[in-house]
């Protein structure tokens, strides 16, 4: 739990942008609808934080801890989440367009209807993640682990699944046209 009082958080969020919050402990804090676009949140702890509808566009969240955070409808387009931990986070309808999520941990993350168009998820761990109805159009999932992940109705057109682990993944009614298979071939 963060040591900052709600007033201190309010003060922090009203400082000139972009915010420099690298390594900050903001766990379990209430940041619903906060404007954190372009913020430097490297290695910050946002565990269990409420970031519903928050703007994190272009933010740097490299190595950040976002476990169990609520990121419903948050805007994370072009955000950098390399090596971040997003296990069990709620990211329903979140916008992660062109985001960088290489080596990120997304175990059991709920990404239902999320927008991951053109996102880089190289070697990301998406074990048991819910990607139902999400858009992964032209996303890069090279070497990603999608073990037992739900990809029901997911748009994977033109996505790169090269060397991805799809064991036990539910691809029912997923759109795979033009996507690259784990063996380098292309889905017709």
């Amino acid at each position, binding site marked *: 739990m963060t040591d900052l009082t709600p007033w201190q958080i309010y003060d922090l969020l009203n400082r000139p942008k972009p915010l420099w919050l690298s390594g900050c402990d903001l766990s379990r804090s209430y940041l619903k609808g906060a404007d954190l676009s372009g913020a430097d949140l490297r290695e910050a702890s946002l565990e269990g934080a409420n970031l519903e509808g928050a703007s994190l566009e*272009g933010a740097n969240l490299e190595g950040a801890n976002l476990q169990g955070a609520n990121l419903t409808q948050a805007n994370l387009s072009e955000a950098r989440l390399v090596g971040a931990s997003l296990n069990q986070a709620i990211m329903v309808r979140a916008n992660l367009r062109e985001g960088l999520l290489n080596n990120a941990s997304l175990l059991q993350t709920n990404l239902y209807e999320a927008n991951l168009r*053109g996102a*880089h998820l190289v070697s990301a761990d998406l074990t048991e993640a819910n990607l139902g109805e999400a858009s992964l159009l032209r996303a*890069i999932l*090279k070497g990603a682990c999608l073990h037992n992940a739900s990809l029901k109705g997911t748009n994977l057109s033109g996505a790169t699944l090269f060397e991805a682990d799809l064991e036990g993944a539910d691809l029912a009614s997923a759109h795979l046209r033009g996507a690259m298979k784990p063996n*380098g*071939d*292309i889905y017709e």
Partner: protein
Amino acid sequence: MIRKDVPMIDVRNIAKYFGSVTALNGVSINVHAGEVMCLLGDNGAGKSTLIKTLSGVHKPSKGEYFVDGEQVDFDSPRDALERGIATVYQDLAMIPLMSIARNFFLGSEPVKRLGPFKRFDVAFADKVAREELKKMGIDIRDPSQPVGTLSGGERQSVAIARAVYFGARVLILDEPTAALGVKQAGVVLRYIAQARSRGIAVIFITHNPHHAYAVGDRFTILKRGQSFGTFTRDELSREEMVRMMSGADELDALSHELEEFARSDELQADRTLSQVEHQLAESLEESEEMFASRGDGS
């Protein structure tokens, strides 16, 4: 890696159709100053169509094209050249029997005036050609020697130096190492690295992952007219690149074919060996019979 500076070339969701044939479909690439961006793909992947689109030869059927953040619509390669986008094609557009200096200034010859007469300024051309090539690390003995006397790698370098001298800020190199030996390819790769260090954006088209990996900063994989992502060096190893470009089914089919060849060669060899053995045995038998009959007769 997400770069915040404006790319020199940025194409988004480019598509190109030739009648019912889709040559390119939703390809997006960008290149920044001082960067080597490699475009990889096997034959028929759409590399040539993409560079022709970038250099103004083809108009894209769909998509957006930005140069220095400004949307453009090129009608001809000259438009692209005016924006500093130069393309060096495989054939290099050089005349082997002309001198290095003449080739260097081909189409933009410096002239010297003598009253109403104009003539090619040989001294200036020689001086500039020598200097510009020296900047690329090539020390030519005589700029008046025919281009045909240069090696393939050196010729490529003359073409690159020429493009840079005439104001190229973006260099599109169409398979510059394709027909070269190992050493000469190395020479060209060195010049590409030099061009990058001079702040030039380079789009290096190749189907050789080894050459691409030696100089590339980012790699775009093209397959069947579609892009399968742009990768940084830490996102894609050279071995992965090879596997990604070829595809398992194609490699399996190829290895199966090669195994079949090897097997039929083995069978052929066995057959030949048994035939030889058989013939040898027959001739031995014949000679034994001959000796035996001679012995009987004597």
